């Protein structure tokens, strides 16, 4: 069986195309198979489950719209991690950056500025992006100037950001003042901001009668821009050089300090935009309880997409499908939606340890492959 699959794969799929796609596709496939084993352990029907998932994610125009909307923050998050990866940096702070972006966007969004809607939307987007960039840039600067490893600092900044954003919209009580951004309406008992002004909401696209906001276009534009920045500019050249061979980059005059700060700031800005589009396009307010585990999902998406913008968009869509379909899956086949997390963890494991996949399907090693040297140690690079 394994032999047959391997022959089919080798013979009928063009080599160059296959080289990039084969491991991710087999990783996803294998993870889905292992996921169904878990389902069978608990006496669920995997076919009904995955069928329900596909139906819930792609079964109707409405479902597809929801899937695409779910994918939007994943695209930004995946790009954020992938971009940092290209420069040899690990941005695990997506969650904090997303919170800071979301709350900053809501702040500008609720402020009635009396300006034209396109400008209000633009300023809100910019605010979210800048807030995320600051939240990524500080760990970048700490790394560049003091050597504090970005993995730890971004994890810490996750908590600081989440708690800080929570304080901004807290209701106070017992001698504690309420947060500066909390909804002033006393009837609202939920700790969140007020609804953002109409003029700050992302415009809706005409797509049948389904709700679909501009976020998806923004995400695709961001993917294109990141591709251009990484592969077509001198900055991107230095970035990739730092990722592939830090000492060679340093000797050829690439500024490690400057690049580290900018890379983390851009990565943070992208993750900030993930929170921003959710706020401006979907929720219309900020409440400190959304998107748990987003930072980790982004890592899986970036790796599954091989740190390439196109790959990131595709794997973000896959995660969007899983997300959007999980409710229907639970409804149809009674499988707890958390099985999705198990499958996602397995996908990440199989992509990262692709020797497992190669072993199962008897694939040969790929030979020369760009390998990023992550600054794995905790110290200076």
């Amino acid at each position, binding site marked *: 069986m394994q032999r047959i699959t391997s022959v089919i794969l080798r013979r009928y799929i063009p080599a160059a195309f296959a080289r990039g796609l084969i491991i991710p596709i087999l990783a996803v496939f294998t993870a889905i198979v292992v996921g169904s084993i878990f389902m069978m352990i608990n006496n669920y029907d995997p076919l009904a489950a995955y069928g329900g998932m596909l139906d819930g994610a792609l079964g109707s125009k409405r479902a597809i719209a929801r899937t695409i909307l779910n994918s939007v923050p994943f695209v930004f998050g995946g790009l954020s991690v992938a971009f940092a990866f290209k420069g040899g940096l690990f941005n695990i702070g997506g969650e904090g950056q997303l919170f800071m972006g979301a709350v900053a966007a809501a702040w500008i969004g609720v402020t009635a500025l009396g300006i034209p809607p396109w400008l209000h939307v633009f300023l809100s987007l910019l605010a979210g992006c800048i807030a995320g960039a600051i939240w990524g840039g500080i760990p970048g600067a700490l790394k560049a100037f003091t050597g504090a490893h970005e993995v730890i600092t971004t994890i810490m900044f996750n908590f600081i950001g989440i708690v800080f954003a929570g304080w901004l919209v807290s209701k106070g009580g017992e001698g504690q003042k309420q947060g500066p951004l909390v909804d002033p309406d006393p009837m609202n008992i939920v700790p969140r901001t007020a609804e953002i002004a109409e003029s700050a909401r992302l415009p809706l696209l005409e797509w049948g009668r389904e709700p679909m906001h501009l976020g998806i276009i923004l995400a695709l534009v961001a993917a294109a821009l990141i591709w251009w920045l990484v592969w077509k500019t001198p900055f991107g050249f230095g970035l990739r050089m730092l990722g592939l061979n830090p000492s060679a980059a340093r000797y050829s005059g690439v500024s490690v300090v400057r690049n580290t700060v900018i890379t983390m700031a851009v990565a943070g800005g992208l993750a900030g935009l993930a929170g921003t589009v959710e706020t401006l396009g979907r929720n219309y307010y900020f409440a400190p309880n959304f998107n748990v585990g987003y930072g980790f999902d982004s890592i899986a998406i970036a790796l599954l997409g091989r740190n390439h913008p196109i790959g990131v968009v595709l794997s973000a869509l896959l995660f969007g499908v899983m997300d959007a379909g999980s409710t229907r899956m639970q409804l149809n086949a009674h499988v707890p939606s958390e099985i999705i997390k198990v499958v996602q*963890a397995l996908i990440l494991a199989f992509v990262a340890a692709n020797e497992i996949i190669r072993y199962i399907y008897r694939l040969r090693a790929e030979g020369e492959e760009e390998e990023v040297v992550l600054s794995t140690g905790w110290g200076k690079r």
Partner: protein
Amino acid sequence: MDSSLVLIAVLRSTLRQSTPITLGALSGLFCERVGVINIAIEGMMLTAAYMGYMTNVLTGNLILSVIVAVLSGGLMALLHAWLSIHFKVVQIISGTVINILAVGLTGYFYQPGAVTKGKLQSVTVPVLSDIPIIGDVFFNNGPLTYLAVALVFVVNVVLFRTRWGLRMRAVGEHPSAADTLGINVISTRYINVVIGGMLAGLAGAYLTLEAVGSFERLMTNGRGFISLAAMIFGKWTPLGGWAAALLFGAANAVQTQIQFSGNVTIPHQFIGMLPYVLTVIVLAGFVGRARPPAAIGRPYEPE
């Protein structure tokens, strides 16, 4: 409220909050001292909390539950070790796998409404517990709390006074030199990462079997990451990690107290933030330098 009662409440809460962090910090220490980054303390803790809880639900045997929790923490660590040592997966990615997997597995197998048969009860130390304030705070706790404190000192001795500890440090600082001297780098890493996982497992057991008595989805709530912070804040030493865990526990206890006291105007969130801010400051070297083991994060390639 009477101020001495407030003091006792805050101190007791400090110790309670710090116990899982102490154990988590020791867990991180065992992994990082042999050169393996462990950002998966959270996932190991969560898995163990769940497994301990379910064993308690099914058997009602608390000692068996603790053992199962510890072993399941070790099992997750074995997966981390296998991915990061055998397959040389970037350790942070492998840790991320464990964290996502733990959330998925515990959520997937979670049974709402399961009922446990009791939890670990406090053990009062005779005589010592009669000392005012101190007795109440330190000598009237559950068994895992005492065990956590004892382990701090045990690990300190193991790490700095035994052959085992010397080998750990050698492997974490200079694996190829250790290899030359006949130390098996790979197996040293495997064993100690698994021990680290078991300590995280003990922290999980503490949560479901001693502190809370039941399991909730995502109940570790970032304690694994704050353990990692405590380990760094304690500069990769058991005693330092313990002190940091106590400090972080105190920040948490004070934060909770402020929310209900009614006369403190500093937002309680700012105090809750303190552990994370302090860790960044220490890591950046603004206050003393935290120096990690030299070979951390690098898979070992024998020459």
